[in-house]
């Protein structure tokens, strides 16, 4: 019977208790060799496998995951998608990603709950509003939706913010991207896995890569906890641990690993209908479909691989939440957690070849890994298949710092820990 998901299939299963759904993805043993091995079964790795099969007809692909798929940042982020970028290179890449998001549930036949509820970024000074305007103008000039809001318009859309004189920084206005929003993060990993699997990709969980076999400057396979696997090409997509895995191939990266924390409150009936971001201090919040308010702030600010955050930062984020939206004060925090992410000097990622032939890198995602997932997989698949960067990811190379090609979207300067 068809494995296709639909309301009809659901009804059929409801009526016939003996009918059971097949596995969303198989659990195969690794074969001896593959055309392409992707290291890392997170959103980016699984998306890459999907597009390798779908766009390039490369099906002898294995995705190797150390734990269970989606165990990394795809399941730890705050689920935001947007394409409000102004630097050449970023703008089109992230808009391409947003376009892929818009069709993703259909493409994967898996409801990822792509919710384009709109994101509003709030400016706390006239100067900041000018800076946002520059970004918004660039978006419009590249066919991306953006609207400039004055204080009054923000008050209409977000009546529950603190507009009183008690507010430390007044809200001067904001910029709205209606097509931005949220996505059910786990569904992205599962949906890509299911699609890739049905195209013949082997998804191998609990399989840790312990080394690379490199002959004459060219990668020919990987050593894993489940034995050696030969590969024509190898792609690394393990953001958060890129330095660790790249080191196995003798590479040193422009990356420091930092923890970013995320938070969720108890579920309540609909109360926040947009994604709201604040310019006073990095802070962003949205309400999940389950009803919890999901939010986050800055990285803790020093490199670490522990997935525990510092309480001082937790308090700082709570102060942001309550100061911007005082009603949150009475809601209860249900859970907070941390994810390890690659921070790069300029805050922009890598999707590129490496000094080792047939070894490719996807990482350095800083804050923006989740929203980039579809475009990241799409362009990484292209880069692997054609052994060259696509126009969309041409600026995300490893050597950009040697050339002074930094892509500092937010003007924070070349500091991994200040991005």
């Amino acid at each position: 019977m068809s494995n296709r998901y639909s309301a009809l299939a659901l009804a059929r299963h409801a009526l016939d208790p003996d009918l059971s759904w097949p596995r969303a993805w198989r659990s195969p043993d690794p074969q001896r060799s593959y055309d392409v091995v992707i290291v890392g079964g997170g959103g980016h790795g699984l998306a890459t496998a999907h597009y390798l099969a779908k766009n390039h007809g490369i099906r002898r692909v294995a995705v190797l995951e150390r734990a269970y798929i989606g165990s990394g940042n795809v399941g730890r982020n705050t689920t935001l998608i947007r394409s409000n970028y102004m630097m050449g290179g970023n703008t089109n890449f992230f808009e391409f990603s947003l376009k892929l998001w818009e069709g993703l549930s259909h493409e994967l036949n898996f409801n990822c709950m792509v919710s384009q509820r709109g994101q509003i970024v709030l400016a706390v000074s006239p100067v900041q509003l000018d800076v946002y305007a520059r970004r918004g103008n660039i978006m419009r000039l590249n066919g991306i939706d953006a609207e400039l809001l004055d204080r009054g318009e923000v008050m209409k859309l977000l009546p529950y913010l603190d507009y009183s004189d008690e507010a430390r920084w007044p809200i001067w206005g904001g910029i709205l991207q209606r097509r931005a929003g949220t996505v059910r993060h786990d569904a992205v990993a599962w949906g890509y896995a299911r699609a890739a699997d049905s195209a013949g990709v082997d998804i191998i969980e609990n399989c840790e890569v312990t080394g690379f076999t490199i002959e004459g400057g060219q990668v020919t396979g990987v050593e894993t906890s489940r034995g050696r696997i030969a590969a024509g090409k190898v792609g690394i997509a393990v953001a958060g641990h890129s330095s660790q895995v790249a080191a196995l191939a003798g590479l040193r990266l422009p990356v420091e690993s930092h923890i970013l924390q995320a938070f969720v409150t108890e579920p309540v009936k609909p109360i926040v209908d947009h994604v709201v971001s604040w310019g006073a201090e990095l802070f962003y919040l949205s309400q999940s479909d389950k009803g919890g308010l999901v939010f986050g702030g800055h990285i803790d600010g020093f490199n670490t691989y522990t997935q525990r955050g510092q309480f001082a930062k937790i308090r700082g984020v709570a102060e942001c939440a309550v100061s911007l939206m005082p009603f949150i004060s009475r809601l209860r925090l249900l859970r907070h957690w941390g994810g390890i992410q690659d921070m790069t000097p300029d805050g922009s990622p890598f999707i590129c070849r490496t000094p080792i032939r047939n070894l490719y890198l996807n990482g350095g995602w800083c804050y923006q890994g989740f929203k980039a997932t579809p475009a990241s997989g799409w362009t990484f698949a292209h880069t692997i298949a054609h052994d060259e960067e696509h126009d969309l990811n041409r600026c995300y190379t490893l050597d950009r710092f040697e050339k002074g090609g930094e892509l500092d979207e937010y003007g924070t300067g070349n500091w991994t820990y200040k991005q």
Partner: protein
Amino acid sequence: MTRFHRRPEGGHIDRARQVSFTLNGRSYSGFAGDTLASALLANDVTLIGRSFKYHRPRGLVSAGVEEPNALFTLGSGARTEPNIPGTIVDLVDGLEARTQNAWPSVGFDLMAVNQLAAPLFQSGFYYKTFMGPAKGSWMFYEPFIRRAAGLGAATRAFDPDRYETRHQHCDVLVVGAGAAGLAAAISAGRSGARVFLAEQDALLGGGLLAEPAMESWRQARLAELQAMPNVQMATRCTAMGLYDDNLVVLVERRDHARPDASKGQPRQVSISLRAKAIVFATGAIERPLVFGDNDRPGIMLASAVRTYLNRFAIVPGRRAVVATNNDTAYPLAAELAAAGVAVMLVDSRPTTAAVAPGVNVLADSSVATVAGRGHIQQVTLSGAHRATFDCDVLAVSGGWSPTLHLTSHTGIKPRYDAAIAAFVPGGFAKTHFGAGAVMGTFGLRAAIIEGAKAGVEAAGAAGFATSDGAMTTIQGNDPTYAITVAPPVLSGKGKAFLDFQSDVTAKDVKIAHQEGYQSVEHLKRYTTLGMGTDQGKTSNVNALAAMSELRGMQIPAVGTTTFRPPYTGVAMGAIAGRGIGKHFRPTRLSPLHDWHRANGATFIEAGPWLRVYYYAWAGDTVATAYVKEMELVRRGVGLSDVSTLGKIDVQGPDAAEFLNRVYVNGFAKLPVGKARYGVMLNDDGVVLDDGTTTRISETQFYLTTTTAQAGEVMSWLEFLLQTQWRDLRVHVTSLTDEWAGMALAGPKSREALQLAFPGVDVSNHGLPYMGCLEFDYEGAQIRLLRLSFSGELAYEIHLPADYSIPLWEHILRVAAPLGIKPYGLEALASLRIEKGHVAGLELDHRNTLDDLGLGKMAAKEKPFVGKELRMRENLQAPDRWSLVGLELLEPGKSLRGGAILFAATDEIKGHGRGYITSVTWSVELQKTIALGLYQGGLKNVGAEIICAFPLKDEFVRARIVSPHFVDPKGERLNA
């Protein structure tokens, strides 16, 4: 007929203090010492909610924080608080509670139709549908899903209550004041260590509160503790999380005391407690049994029935069935019998423990099905005795799960102990200890002894060697604890619930397994098991058991889920404390602030600073006022507050060499008494900051930075001196707070100076451009610099901050005949635009010296920070965007910051050739002008370009000109 009723005596309640409260508007009464849950139960209110997905009737399951069902919305108006378990709410007079998730009422809930469609709602159903018909169809379905989800409703009104934070330190923290915790606190306390005993409950005693036989022991221990001044006891105080280096965050709740925010009384206090050692005595949480319709009201955890019976003196009807797979339910059966309840004890194990008289025991039997929708009425058994019994309550015990959440917050994985069918702490850090049920020690006597030992060890770890672990305990041995977990029923009729709150059944786990969501995290995320407000405290282990059954593995092989803080939900306000509203971040004020405020200033936030935007004398809106203030400076003389500039004292024999290294231009040969404009790069060759630095003596410089970068630059200089160039004999100190600064600018500024400081030679000869005079005026040390940000003849007067207001007033007074007035930030920033000075918007960590038209400043010979990396290919590209001036060519239209620039012949799309940073009306040229960055920069002078601002559908023509709109030759400032 009533089922649950209150006994005339006994329990930890104060019958002398009656408390009245309402549920859904209807009044009830209880006693002081009740929880909302116990009071409702005493009133025989057993149906208190509807389930999340299927809207099944639900009743109380527990008597503690683990409660999955009995969630209420408390309070009203701005104090509305949803999803609060009635089991943790102190009953106070006038308490308003409402049931949730049912319409119109929990008794008759129309949403119960969901139950008909139940098969549709099996786990993961929403991933499989709501996709059609078109792309983005989810946007149509989502609102319905959102409204159906979300448990209770919150309010958007601002929280009127106050929350505090407190920092505290102790030697030994004991978490949990049950038998083990009390013993630990005492033995640790005897060592003289500072002990903090934290208990989440309103009373100290934990499980002892349901053990009548232990009451005298509890009282005696409390007396011992009260006699120890070094022991601090806190009730209603929950340890929410354990963080690095023994930081435990506790949240203390004071609702019961009716705190008054206007008197500064906090509703909750979050305590950041730093402990040298920690004893975890957090106890254990009982698990339900898994069988069909195991969620019916009247089916409660045995420990809960016992707590309601003994602590709250509530008898659960006339007939009770107690179903268990372990020994801990037996005392309850005995106590129920003693209370006159007909008890049937059903034990799934073949052999049973000893039982008290009056208790009928059926071994080798389990609950198969139950009858009764709104409340349980019958139990039908399977196994050895396939009988059916009527009952008013079914008390169940599926074993115990140690409360190890806190112990695992710093990453220590729990270990599965098959003997007790539960996870226990997988190990401890040097300074961590455990005692009692959390360690799997379920006997009281053993727990007390273990607690006393842990207290001694913890005190030792905290540096208090000698302590006395001798502890009065109880006679006789603990009853043995044995448990046999029967495999959970995964099929059969009637939903067998694992997670009551999220409505996750055994069948859902089966489906997850079939579809391959088999790792614990996949199971949780796919079925939402354990994701509710109770965070799966009663469901995690039963779910693991179900999955291990399906996978044919042992539970440890299936794994455990990671516990995340907080242990129980914590009000966001309590975490934030007072760092909200106007106290969100510190506000920084100029030493002249009081004068500004008293003299019609409108302020604007500039980073941490409050600066003067404009003054009332010039107008009542910034748009009109700043132009007047500019005219004042261009035509007469104005005074402006520049105290926010970063100021740094650079002293030492190598001070000149030091500055020579950090600035791109030379400072080694700067003569004493002279100032010089300097630019610093970061190591990457990008501009870090600019400012004017004055040589006070051979070995002392007075360095100024921009307001925005002051902190960065100070830290950077300290970094270089303290870690990289330790050979340089230089010391730096911030003077930003010590010195105030005021800019005196305009053609009449010299006259104003002469009036202000008669006897000081401020002639062009006495004080030439970029010169500096230091003198004493009326007891104040004055540093008078001749430099200009506006391009006019101008000076900066720096002096110790406390003198700034008197001097400011003096200057305004004596120079009044010249028409002097103060001017604000908007005018200051606009005057610099006219002069083409770069500032914050141009110094954005992306631009190079050449981008800002400062390339010529870079020294050819001497090395300087950033000299190497500024030579990188792209940073030297000839077509980089660099600083230009712009003149508006279409009067009546406007230039705007953030506009994107295009050549006249370009198609208006893409990223353009540059952008506008700053715009102003030029009083000098009487037209709108701007600064911006443009591809190729000044090579395009004279070119006509398009300034695109599509956000407002504006496309305006402008001409590229030199950014130096005013006095390009600098005749004015040299005059």
